[in-house]
Protein backbone atom coordinates (compact mmCIF):
# COMPACT_ATOMS: atom_id res chain seq x y z
CA UNK A 1 0.00 0.00 0.00
CA UNK A 2 1.21 3.49 -0.86
CA UNK A 3 0.25 6.47 1.28
CA UNK A 4 1.12 10.11 0.66
CA UNK A 5 0.61 12.53 3.53
CA UNK A 6 0.59 16.25 2.83
CA UNK A 7 3.30 16.04 0.21
CA UNK A 8 4.53 19.43 -0.87
CA UNK A 9 7.11 20.13 -3.53
CA UNK A 10 8.62 23.53 -4.00
CA UNK A 11 11.23 23.78 -6.74
CA UNK A 12 14.30 25.98 -6.36
CA UNK A 13 12.66 28.46 -8.70
CA UNK A 14 9.94 28.94 -6.10
CA UNK A 15 7.27 27.15 -8.12
CA UNK A 16 5.08 24.97 -5.97
CA UNK A 17 4.35 21.84 -7.99
CA UNK A 18 2.45 19.92 -5.32
CA UNK A 19 0.35 21.50 -2.58
CA UNK A 20 -0.19 19.18 0.36
CA UNK A 21 -1.24 16.17 -1.64
CA UNK A 22 -2.59 13.26 0.37
CA UNK A 23 -3.44 10.03 -1.39
CA UNK A 24 -3.84 6.40 -0.45
CA UNK A 25 -3.48 3.56 -2.92
CA UNK A 26 -4.36 0.06 -1.70
CA UNK A 27 -2.47 -3.01 -2.90
CA UNK A 28 -3.30 -4.04 -6.42
CA UNK A 29 -5.19 -0.90 -7.38
CA UNK A 30 -4.48 0.75 -10.71
CA UNK A 31 -5.12 4.46 -10.63
CA UNK A 32 -4.94 6.95 -13.44
CA UNK A 33 -3.61 10.39 -12.62
CA UNK A 34 -4.97 12.96 -15.02
CA UNK A 35 -4.59 16.69 -15.31
CA UNK A 36 -3.28 19.38 -17.62
CA UNK A 37 0.43 19.78 -18.37
CA UNK A 38 2.19 21.32 -15.43
CA UNK A 39 -0.38 20.10 -12.92
CA UNK A 40 2.31 18.17 -11.03
CA UNK A 41 1.65 14.62 -12.28
CA UNK A 42 5.27 13.87 -13.11
CA UNK A 43 6.46 15.55 -9.95
CA UNK A 44 4.10 13.44 -7.89
CA UNK A 45 5.34 10.06 -9.11
CA UNK A 46 8.95 11.24 -9.03
CA UNK A 47 8.52 12.27 -5.41
CA UNK A 48 7.48 8.72 -4.59
CA UNK A 49 10.77 7.18 -5.74
CA UNK A 50 12.63 10.41 -4.95
CA UNK A 51 14.00 11.16 -8.37
CA UNK A 52 12.59 14.46 -7.15
CA UNK A 53 12.97 15.18 -3.43
CA UNK A 54 9.68 16.23 -1.82
CA UNK A 55 10.01 19.40 0.22
CA UNK A 56 7.53 18.46 2.93
CA UNK A 57 5.26 15.58 3.86
CA UNK A 58 5.59 11.85 4.28
CA UNK A 59 5.30 8.97 1.84
CA UNK A 60 4.83 5.41 3.05
CA UNK A 61 5.34 2.32 0.93
CA UNK A 62 3.94 -0.40 3.17
CA UNK A 63 5.57 0.41 6.51
CA UNK A 64 8.61 2.14 5.07
CA UNK A 65 8.69 5.92 5.24
CA UNK A 66 10.44 6.92 2.02
CA UNK A 67 11.21 10.62 2.33
CA UNK A 68 13.84 10.28 5.05
CA UNK A 69 15.62 7.13 3.86
CA UNK A 70 19.42 7.30 3.69
CA UNK A 71 20.95 6.51 0.25
CA UNK A 72 21.49 2.79 0.76
CA UNK A 73 17.99 2.22 2.12
CA UNK A 74 16.56 4.41 -0.64
CA UNK A 75 18.13 2.16 -3.28
CA UNK A 76 16.56 -0.85 -1.60
CA UNK A 77 13.19 0.87 -1.55
CA UNK A 78 13.53 1.84 -5.22
CA UNK A 79 13.74 -1.85 -6.13
CA UNK A 80 10.14 -2.16 -4.95
CA UNK A 81 8.97 0.58 -7.30
CA UNK A 82 9.20 -0.07 -11.02
CA UNK A 83 9.05 3.01 -13.19
CA UNK A 84 7.88 3.26 -16.78
CA UNK A 85 8.75 6.44 -18.63
CA UNK A 86 7.45 8.77 -21.23
CA UNK A 87 9.53 8.34 -24.41
CA UNK A 88 10.58 4.93 -23.02
CA UNK A 89 13.93 6.16 -21.57
CA UNK A 90 15.78 3.04 -22.65
CA UNK A 91 19.54 3.39 -22.79
CA UNK A 92 19.67 3.45 -26.55
CA UNK A 93 23.14 2.09 -27.14
CA UNK A 94 22.65 -0.90 -24.87
CA UNK A 95 21.02 -4.10 -26.06
CA UNK A 96 17.43 -4.92 -25.24
CA UNK A 97 18.66 -7.59 -22.82
CA UNK A 98 20.96 -5.15 -21.00
CA UNK A 99 18.09 -2.71 -20.72
CA UNK A 100 15.83 -5.35 -19.20
CA UNK A 101 18.54 -6.65 -16.87
CA UNK A 102 19.31 -3.12 -15.71
CA UNK A 103 16.09 -3.55 -13.71
CA UNK A 104 18.08 -5.97 -11.53
CA UNK A 105 20.89 -3.50 -10.76
CA UNK A 106 19.55 -2.91 -7.28
CA UNK A 107 19.97 -6.61 -6.51
CA UNK A 108 23.45 -7.39 -7.85
CA UNK A 109 26.92 -6.13 -7.01
CA UNK A 110 28.90 -3.72 -9.17
CA UNK A 111 31.33 -6.22 -10.72
CA UNK A 112 28.53 -8.65 -11.50
CA UNK A 113 26.70 -5.95 -13.39
CA UNK A 114 29.90 -4.59 -14.94
CA UNK A 115 30.72 -7.96 -16.53
CA UNK A 116 27.03 -8.55 -17.33
CA UNK A 117 27.13 -11.76 -15.25
CA UNK A 118 23.62 -11.69 -13.85
CA UNK A 119 22.30 -14.63 -11.81
CA UNK A 120 20.82 -17.43 -13.95
CA UNK A 121 17.32 -16.89 -12.66
CA UNK A 122 17.48 -13.17 -13.54
CA UNK A 123 18.43 -13.99 -17.11
CA UNK A 124 15.69 -16.60 -17.27
CA UNK A 125 13.16 -14.12 -15.92
CA UNK A 126 14.31 -11.52 -18.45
CA UNK A 127 13.68 -13.98 -21.29
CA UNK A 128 10.33 -14.94 -19.80
CA UNK A 129 9.23 -11.31 -19.62
CA UNK A 130 10.47 -10.55 -23.12
CA UNK A 131 8.53 -13.54 -24.36
CA UNK A 132 5.46 -12.35 -22.46
CA UNK A 133 5.53 -9.03 -24.34
CA UNK A 134 6.43 -10.74 -27.61
CA UNK A 135 10.01 -9.51 -27.97
CA UNK A 136 11.97 -12.70 -27.22
CA UNK A 137 13.67 -12.54 -30.62
CA UNK A 138 14.81 -8.96 -30.05
CA UNK A 139 16.97 -9.65 -26.99
CA UNK A 140 20.29 -8.96 -28.73
CA UNK A 141 19.12 -5.97 -30.76
CA UNK A 142 20.24 -2.54 -29.75
CA UNK A 143 17.44 -0.58 -28.11
CA UNK A 144 17.53 2.17 -30.73
CA UNK A 145 16.65 -0.33 -33.47
CA UNK A 146 13.19 -0.90 -31.99
CA UNK A 147 9.96 0.89 -32.79
CA UNK A 148 8.21 3.06 -30.21
CA UNK A 149 5.76 0.41 -29.08
CA UNK A 150 8.48 -2.21 -28.85
CA UNK A 151 10.67 0.11 -26.81
CA UNK A 152 7.89 0.80 -24.37
CA UNK A 153 7.35 -2.94 -23.94
CA UNK A 154 11.06 -3.30 -23.12
CA UNK A 155 10.59 -0.46 -20.63
CA UNK A 156 7.76 -2.44 -19.06
CA UNK A 157 9.98 -5.53 -18.79
CA UNK A 158 12.69 -3.45 -17.12
CA UNK A 159 10.20 -2.24 -14.53
CA UNK A 160 8.71 -5.68 -13.92
CA UNK A 161 11.99 -7.56 -13.53
CA UNK A 162 12.58 -5.44 -10.42
CA UNK A 163 9.82 -7.56 -8.91
CA UNK A 164 8.12 -4.40 -7.64
CA UNK A 165 5.10 -3.89 -5.42
CA UNK A 166 4.18 -0.72 -7.22
CA UNK A 167 4.47 0.63 -10.74
CA UNK A 168 5.02 4.33 -11.35
CA UNK A 169 4.02 5.02 -14.92
CA UNK A 170 4.72 8.42 -16.47
CA UNK A 171 2.80 9.18 -19.66
CA UNK A 172 3.39 5.73 -21.15
CA UNK A 173 1.54 6.52 -24.36
CA UNK A 174 2.65 10.10 -24.94
CA UNK A 175 4.60 9.34 -28.09
CA UNK A 176 2.68 6.35 -29.41
CA UNK A 177 -0.05 6.08 -32.00
CA UNK A 178 -3.62 5.43 -30.77
CA UNK A 179 -3.61 1.70 -31.44
CA UNK A 180 -0.20 1.08 -29.86
CA UNK A 181 -1.28 3.27 -26.94
CA UNK A 182 -4.20 1.00 -26.27
CA UNK A 183 -2.07 -2.12 -26.57
CA UNK A 184 0.46 -0.71 -24.13
CA UNK A 185 -2.20 0.35 -21.65
CA UNK A 186 -3.87 -3.03 -21.89
CA UNK A 187 -0.55 -4.78 -21.37
CA UNK A 188 0.24 -2.70 -18.28
CA UNK A 189 -3.21 -3.47 -16.96
CA UNK A 190 -2.97 -7.20 -17.58
CA UNK A 191 0.45 -7.40 -15.99
CA UNK A 192 -0.72 -5.48 -12.92
CA UNK A 193 -3.59 -7.91 -12.70
CA UNK A 194 -1.41 -11.01 -13.08
CA UNK A 195 0.98 -9.85 -10.37
CA UNK A 196 -1.39 -8.00 -8.09
CA UNK A 197 0.55 -4.79 -8.61
CA UNK A 198 -0.60 -1.35 -7.66
CA UNK A 199 0.10 1.35 -10.22
CA UNK A 200 -0.07 5.09 -10.64
CA UNK A 201 -0.43 5.93 -14.30
CA UNK A 202 0.02 9.54 -15.39
CA UNK A 203 -1.89 10.05 -18.54
CA UNK A 204 -3.03 12.87 -20.78
CA UNK A 205 -5.68 10.91 -22.58
CA UNK A 206 -8.91 10.98 -20.58
CA UNK A 207 -10.43 8.21 -22.67
CA UNK A 208 -7.54 5.84 -22.01
CA UNK A 209 -7.64 6.76 -18.33
CA UNK A 210 -11.28 5.73 -18.16
CA UNK A 211 -10.76 2.53 -20.10
CA UNK A 212 -7.81 1.18 -18.18
CA UNK A 213 -8.08 2.17 -14.56
CA UNK A 214 -10.12 1.35 -11.50
CA UNK A 215 -9.87 4.82 -10.09
CA UNK A 216 -9.11 8.26 -11.45
CA UNK A 217 -7.39 11.08 -9.61
CA UNK A 218 -7.51 14.53 -11.16
CA UNK A 219 -4.72 16.94 -10.39
CA UNK A 220 -4.88 20.67 -11.03
CA UNK A 221 -2.15 23.13 -10.12
CA UNK A 222 -0.71 20.72 -7.59
CA UNK A 223 -3.96 19.87 -5.86
CA UNK A 224 -6.28 16.90 -6.08
CA UNK A 225 -9.59 18.09 -7.46
CA UNK A 226 -11.15 14.74 -8.29
CA UNK A 227 -10.78 11.28 -6.79
CA UNK A 228 -13.30 8.69 -7.83
CA UNK A 229 -14.43 6.05 -10.28
CA UNK A 230 -13.66 6.40 -14.01
CA UNK A 231 -17.31 6.83 -14.93
CA UNK A 232 -17.60 9.78 -12.57
CA UNK A 233 -15.71 11.92 -15.05
CA UNK A 234 -18.61 14.08 -16.16
CA UNK A 235 -18.23 17.28 -18.17
CA UNK A 236 -18.39 19.43 -15.05
CA UNK A 237 -15.58 17.40 -13.45
CA UNK A 238 -13.39 17.69 -16.53
CA UNK A 239 -14.06 21.42 -16.63
CA UNK A 240 -12.96 21.58 -13.01
CA UNK A 241 -9.69 19.78 -13.90
CA UNK A 242 -8.84 21.18 -17.30
CA UNK A 243 -10.97 24.28 -17.74
CA UNK A 244 -13.89 25.11 -20.00
CA UNK A 245 -14.25 22.99 -23.16
CA UNK A 246 -16.84 20.86 -24.89
CA UNK A 247 -16.33 17.50 -23.17
CA UNK A 248 -19.20 15.45 -24.62
CA UNK A 249 -17.11 13.95 -27.43
CA UNK A 250 -14.30 12.95 -25.06
CA UNK A 251 -16.32 10.82 -22.69
CA UNK A 252 -18.53 8.97 -25.07
CA UNK A 253 -19.19 5.32 -24.45
CA UNK A 254 -15.91 3.48 -25.00
CA UNK A 255 -16.99 -0.17 -25.20
CA UNK A 256 -17.19 -0.31 -28.96
CA UNK A 257 -13.66 1.01 -29.29
CA UNK A 258 -12.25 -1.53 -26.95
CA UNK A 259 -13.80 -4.51 -28.69
CA UNK A 260 -12.38 -3.34 -31.97
CA UNK A 261 -8.92 -3.08 -30.46
CA UNK A 262 -8.91 -6.39 -28.63
CA UNK A 263 -9.98 -8.40 -31.66
CA UNK A 264 -6.60 -7.66 -33.25
Amino acid at each position, binding site marked *: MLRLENVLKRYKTGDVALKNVSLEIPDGQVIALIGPSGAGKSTLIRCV*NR*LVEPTEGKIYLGDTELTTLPPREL*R*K*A*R*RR*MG*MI*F*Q*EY*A*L*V*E*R*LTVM*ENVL*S*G*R*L*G*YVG*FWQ*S*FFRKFPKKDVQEAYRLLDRVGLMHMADKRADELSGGQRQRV*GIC*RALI*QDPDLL*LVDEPTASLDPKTSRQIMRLINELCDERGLAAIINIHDVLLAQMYSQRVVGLKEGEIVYDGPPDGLKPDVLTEIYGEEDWEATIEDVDEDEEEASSK
Partner: protein
Amino acid sequence: MSQPQTSYPDYWKKPPFIKRPWLRWGLIIGTVVYVIVALGTMDVNWVRVWEGLPRGRKLLASFFPPNFADSRGVIIDGILESIWMAIIATIGGIILSVPVGLGAARNLSPRWVYLFCRFIVSASRTFPEIIIAIFAVKFFGFGPFAGFVALSIGTVGFFAKLLAEDIEAMNKTQAESVRSTGSNWFQWVNYAIQPQVMPRMIGLSLYRLDINFRESAVVGIVGAGGIGAHLLTSISRYEYDTTASILLVIIVIVISLEYISGYLRKWVQ
Protein backbone atom coordinates in the same frame (compact mmCIF):
# COMPACT_ATOMS: atom_id res chain seq x y z
CA MET B 1 -8.55 34.19 -31.27
CA SER B 2 -8.25 37.81 -32.37
CA GLN B 3 -10.33 39.53 -34.99
CA PRO B 4 -8.76 39.66 -38.46
CA GLN B 5 -7.41 43.09 -39.25
CA THR B 6 -8.16 44.95 -42.41
CA SER B 7 -4.56 45.30 -43.58
CA TYR B 8 -1.27 43.52 -42.78
CA PRO B 9 2.32 44.71 -43.28
CA ASP B 10 3.99 43.18 -46.36
CA TYR B 11 7.48 43.92 -45.06
CA TRP B 12 9.39 41.79 -42.53
CA LYS B 13 12.98 41.97 -41.39
CA LYS B 14 14.85 39.54 -39.13
CA PRO B 15 15.26 41.18 -35.69
CA PRO B 16 18.95 42.07 -35.14
CA PHE B 17 21.01 39.82 -32.85
CA ILE B 18 22.01 42.79 -30.67
CA LYS B 19 18.93 44.90 -30.09
CA ARG B 20 20.39 48.21 -28.85
CA PRO B 21 21.56 50.13 -31.94
CA TRP B 22 24.35 52.07 -30.19
CA LEU B 23 25.83 48.82 -28.85
CA ARG B 24 25.50 47.06 -32.21
CA TRP B 25 27.14 49.85 -34.19
CA GLY B 26 29.67 50.49 -31.45
CA LEU B 27 30.86 46.88 -31.61
CA ILE B 28 31.02 46.82 -35.41
CA ILE B 29 32.91 50.13 -35.71
CA GLY B 30 35.15 49.29 -32.74
CA THR B 31 36.19 45.97 -34.30
CA VAL B 32 36.97 47.54 -37.67
CA VAL B 33 39.01 50.34 -36.09
CA TYR B 34 40.91 47.88 -33.89
CA VAL B 35 41.85 45.65 -36.83
CA ILE B 36 43.08 48.65 -38.86
CA VAL B 37 45.13 50.01 -35.94
CA ALA B 38 46.54 46.55 -35.15
CA LEU B 39 47.65 46.07 -38.75
CA GLY B 40 49.18 49.54 -38.68
CA THR B 41 51.33 48.80 -35.63
CA MET B 42 52.72 45.60 -37.17
CA ASP B 43 56.01 46.87 -38.49
CA VAL B 44 56.83 44.95 -41.66
CA ASN B 45 60.07 45.68 -43.45
CA TRP B 46 59.05 44.87 -47.01
CA VAL B 47 62.60 45.20 -48.31
CA ARG B 48 63.77 42.43 -46.03
CA VAL B 49 60.81 40.27 -46.94
CA TRP B 50 61.72 40.71 -50.59
CA GLU B 51 65.38 39.86 -49.95
CA GLY B 52 64.33 36.81 -47.93
CA LEU B 53 62.39 35.20 -50.75
CA PRO B 54 65.36 33.85 -52.75
CA ARG B 55 66.96 32.67 -49.52
CA GLY B 56 63.79 30.75 -48.70
CA ARG B 57 63.86 29.20 -52.14
CA LYS B 58 67.45 28.10 -51.61
CA LEU B 59 66.57 26.63 -48.21
CA LEU B 60 63.64 24.68 -49.65
CA ALA B 61 65.81 23.45 -52.50
CA SER B 62 68.32 22.04 -50.05
CA PHE B 63 65.54 19.81 -48.61
CA PHE B 64 65.57 17.82 -51.84
CA PRO B 65 66.19 15.06 -52.43
CA PRO B 66 65.35 13.84 -48.90
CA ASN B 67 68.12 11.75 -47.48
CA PHE B 68 67.09 8.66 -45.58
CA ALA B 69 70.33 6.78 -45.99
CA ASP B 70 72.74 8.69 -43.73
CA SER B 71 70.80 8.47 -40.51
CA ARG B 72 68.28 5.74 -41.10
CA GLY B 73 68.81 4.02 -37.75
CA VAL B 74 68.46 7.25 -35.79
CA ILE B 75 65.26 8.23 -37.58
CA ILE B 76 63.65 4.84 -37.04
CA ASP B 77 64.62 4.81 -33.36
CA GLY B 78 63.34 8.35 -32.90
CA ILE B 79 60.06 7.67 -34.66
CA LEU B 80 59.46 4.47 -32.69
CA GLU B 81 60.19 6.33 -29.48
CA SER B 82 57.74 9.08 -30.48
CA ILE B 83 55.04 6.56 -31.32
CA TRP B 84 55.63 4.72 -28.06
CA MET B 85 55.53 7.99 -26.13
CA ALA B 86 52.32 9.09 -27.84
CA ILE B 87 50.54 5.78 -27.22
CA ILE B 88 51.56 5.46 -23.57
CA ALA B 89 50.78 9.11 -22.87
CA THR B 90 47.36 8.78 -24.51
CA ILE B 91 46.47 5.69 -22.50
CA GLY B 92 47.89 7.08 -19.26
CA GLY B 93 46.26 10.43 -19.81
CA ILE B 94 42.85 8.93 -20.52
CA ILE B 95 43.00 6.70 -17.45
CA LEU B 96 43.71 9.80 -15.37
CA SER B 97 41.04 11.78 -17.24
CA VAL B 98 38.11 9.49 -16.49
CA PRO B 99 37.81 10.25 -12.76
CA VAL B 100 38.60 13.93 -13.35
CA GLY B 101 36.04 14.12 -16.17
CA LEU B 102 33.34 12.45 -14.06
CA GLY B 103 34.12 14.87 -11.26
CA ALA B 104 34.05 17.87 -13.57
CA ALA B 105 30.55 17.10 -14.85
CA ARG B 106 28.17 19.40 -13.05
CA ASN B 107 25.21 17.03 -13.22
CA LEU B 108 27.18 14.22 -11.56
CA SER B 109 29.23 15.68 -8.78
CA PRO B 110 28.72 17.73 -5.66
CA ARG B 111 29.83 21.31 -6.01
CA TRP B 112 33.20 21.09 -4.27
CA VAL B 113 34.26 18.03 -6.32
CA TYR B 114 33.13 19.85 -9.45
CA LEU B 115 35.15 22.95 -8.65
CA PHE B 116 38.22 20.91 -7.71
CA CYS B 117 38.14 18.86 -10.94
CA ARG B 118 37.48 21.95 -13.06
CA PHE B 119 40.55 23.46 -11.41
CA ILE B 120 42.67 20.45 -12.42
CA VAL B 121 41.36 20.73 -15.97
CA SER B 122 42.04 24.46 -16.26
CA ALA B 123 45.45 24.10 -14.65
CA SER B 124 46.56 21.45 -17.11
CA ARG B 125 45.16 23.45 -20.00
CA THR B 126 46.93 26.63 -18.96
CA PHE B 127 50.38 25.55 -20.10
CA PRO B 128 51.07 24.19 -23.57
CA GLU B 129 52.75 20.79 -23.69
CA ILE B 130 56.12 22.28 -24.55
CA ILE B 131 56.27 24.34 -21.35
CA ILE B 132 55.22 21.35 -19.24
CA ALA B 133 57.89 19.37 -21.08
CA ILE B 134 60.57 21.91 -20.14
CA PHE B 135 59.69 21.44 -16.46
CA ALA B 136 59.38 17.66 -16.84
CA VAL B 137 62.89 17.54 -18.29
CA LYS B 138 64.14 19.57 -15.31
CA PHE B 139 62.44 17.13 -12.90
CA PHE B 140 63.06 13.78 -14.53
CA GLY B 141 66.04 14.44 -16.76
CA PHE B 142 66.34 14.09 -20.54
CA GLY B 143 64.49 11.31 -22.30
CA PRO B 144 61.07 10.02 -23.26
CA PHE B 145 59.77 9.73 -19.68
CA ALA B 146 59.68 13.51 -19.44
CA GLY B 147 57.81 13.60 -22.74
CA PHE B 148 55.37 10.99 -21.50
CA VAL B 149 54.63 13.06 -18.39
CA ALA B 150 54.15 16.27 -20.38
CA LEU B 151 51.84 14.68 -22.94
CA SER B 152 49.83 12.85 -20.27
CA ILE B 153 49.15 16.10 -18.46
CA GLY B 154 48.13 17.72 -21.73
CA THR B 155 45.82 14.79 -22.44
CA VAL B 156 44.07 15.18 -19.06
CA GLY B 157 43.28 18.81 -19.77
CA PHE B 158 41.86 17.97 -23.16
CA PHE B 159 40.08 14.70 -22.52
CA ALA B 160 38.61 15.38 -19.08
CA LYS B 161 37.11 18.66 -20.25
CA LEU B 162 35.44 17.10 -23.28
CA LEU B 163 34.29 14.05 -21.32
CA ALA B 164 32.72 16.32 -18.70
CA GLU B 165 30.98 18.37 -21.37
CA ASP B 166 29.65 15.27 -23.09
CA ILE B 167 28.29 13.97 -19.79
CA GLU B 168 26.62 17.30 -19.11
CA ALA B 169 24.89 17.07 -22.49
CA MET B 170 23.62 13.52 -22.01
CA ASN B 171 20.00 12.44 -22.14
CA LYS B 172 18.64 12.98 -18.66
CA THR B 173 15.73 10.55 -18.73
CA GLN B 174 17.92 7.62 -19.75
CA ALA B 175 20.03 8.40 -16.70
CA GLU B 176 16.93 8.81 -14.55
CA SER B 177 15.52 5.47 -15.65
CA VAL B 178 18.62 3.56 -14.57
CA ARG B 179 18.70 5.40 -11.24
CA SER B 180 15.07 4.50 -10.61
CA THR B 181 15.91 0.79 -10.61
CA GLY B 182 17.82 1.17 -7.34
CA SER B 183 21.27 1.00 -8.92
CA ASN B 184 24.24 2.37 -7.03
CA TRP B 185 26.38 5.23 -8.34
CA PHE B 186 28.95 3.09 -10.13
CA GLN B 187 26.29 0.93 -11.77
CA TRP B 188 24.52 4.07 -12.82
CA VAL B 189 27.65 5.44 -14.47
CA ASN B 190 28.32 2.09 -16.13
CA TYR B 191 24.79 1.52 -17.46
CA ALA B 192 23.40 4.99 -18.10
CA ILE B 193 26.32 7.29 -18.80
CA GLN B 194 29.07 5.17 -20.30
CA PRO B 195 26.96 3.93 -23.25
CA GLN B 196 25.94 7.49 -24.03
CA VAL B 197 29.42 8.98 -24.08
CA MET B 198 31.46 6.00 -25.33
CA PRO B 199 31.41 6.53 -29.13
CA ARG B 200 32.49 10.14 -28.82
CA MET B 201 35.19 9.21 -26.32
CA ILE B 202 36.66 6.59 -28.65
CA GLY B 203 36.76 9.17 -31.43
CA LEU B 204 38.41 11.70 -29.14
CA SER B 205 40.99 9.16 -27.92
CA LEU B 206 42.12 8.57 -31.48
CA TYR B 207 42.17 12.28 -32.15
CA ARG B 208 44.24 12.79 -29.02
CA LEU B 209 46.64 10.02 -30.10
CA ASP B 210 47.10 11.99 -33.31
CA ILE B 211 47.76 15.21 -31.37
CA ASN B 212 50.13 13.46 -28.97
CA PHE B 213 52.17 12.04 -31.82
CA ARG B 214 52.60 15.48 -33.35
CA GLU B 215 53.32 17.00 -29.94
CA SER B 216 55.91 14.32 -29.27
CA ALA B 217 57.94 15.74 -32.14
CA VAL B 218 57.69 19.18 -30.54
CA VAL B 219 58.56 18.19 -26.97
CA GLY B 220 61.59 16.32 -28.32
CA ILE B 221 63.09 19.71 -29.17
CA VAL B 222 63.42 20.56 -25.47
CA GLY B 223 64.96 17.18 -24.74
CA ALA B 224 61.94 15.11 -23.84
CA GLY B 225 62.77 12.21 -26.16
CA GLY B 226 61.37 11.12 -29.48
CA ILE B 227 61.99 12.31 -33.00
CA GLY B 228 62.03 16.03 -32.14
CA ALA B 229 65.62 15.99 -30.92
CA HIS B 230 66.84 14.54 -34.22
CA LEU B 231 64.78 17.05 -36.13
CA LEU B 232 66.45 19.90 -34.25
CA THR B 233 69.93 18.38 -34.59
CA SER B 234 69.59 17.96 -38.33
CA ILE B 235 68.42 21.54 -38.74
CA SER B 236 71.25 22.99 -36.64
CA ARG B 237 73.77 20.92 -38.61
CA TYR B 238 72.30 22.25 -41.90
CA GLU B 239 71.51 18.65 -42.94
CA TYR B 240 68.27 19.75 -44.52
CA ASP B 241 67.95 16.61 -46.63
CA THR B 242 67.76 14.60 -43.39
CA THR B 243 65.26 17.13 -41.97
CA ALA B 244 63.12 16.57 -45.04
CA SER B 245 63.10 12.81 -44.58
CA ILE B 246 62.10 13.15 -40.91
CA LEU B 247 59.28 15.54 -41.83
CA LEU B 248 58.09 13.14 -44.52
CA VAL B 249 57.91 10.27 -42.06
CA ILE B 250 55.96 12.44 -39.60
CA ILE B 251 53.54 13.51 -42.32
CA VAL B 252 52.96 9.93 -43.47
CA ILE B 253 52.26 8.74 -39.91
CA VAL B 254 49.90 11.63 -39.16
CA ILE B 255 47.97 11.02 -42.36
CA SER B 256 47.63 7.31 -41.71
CA LEU B 257 46.47 7.99 -38.15
CA GLU B 258 43.88 10.35 -39.60
CA TYR B 259 42.54 7.64 -41.89
CA ILE B 260 42.55 4.95 -39.23
CA SER B 261 40.73 7.15 -36.72
CA GLY B 262 38.19 8.24 -39.30
CA TYR B 263 37.44 4.63 -40.12
CA LEU B 264 37.24 3.54 -36.48
CA ARG B 265 34.99 6.43 -35.55
CA LYS B 266 32.52 5.46 -38.22
CA TRP B 267 32.64 1.88 -37.02
CA VAL B 268 31.87 2.62 -33.34
CA GLN B 269 28.85 4.79 -34.09
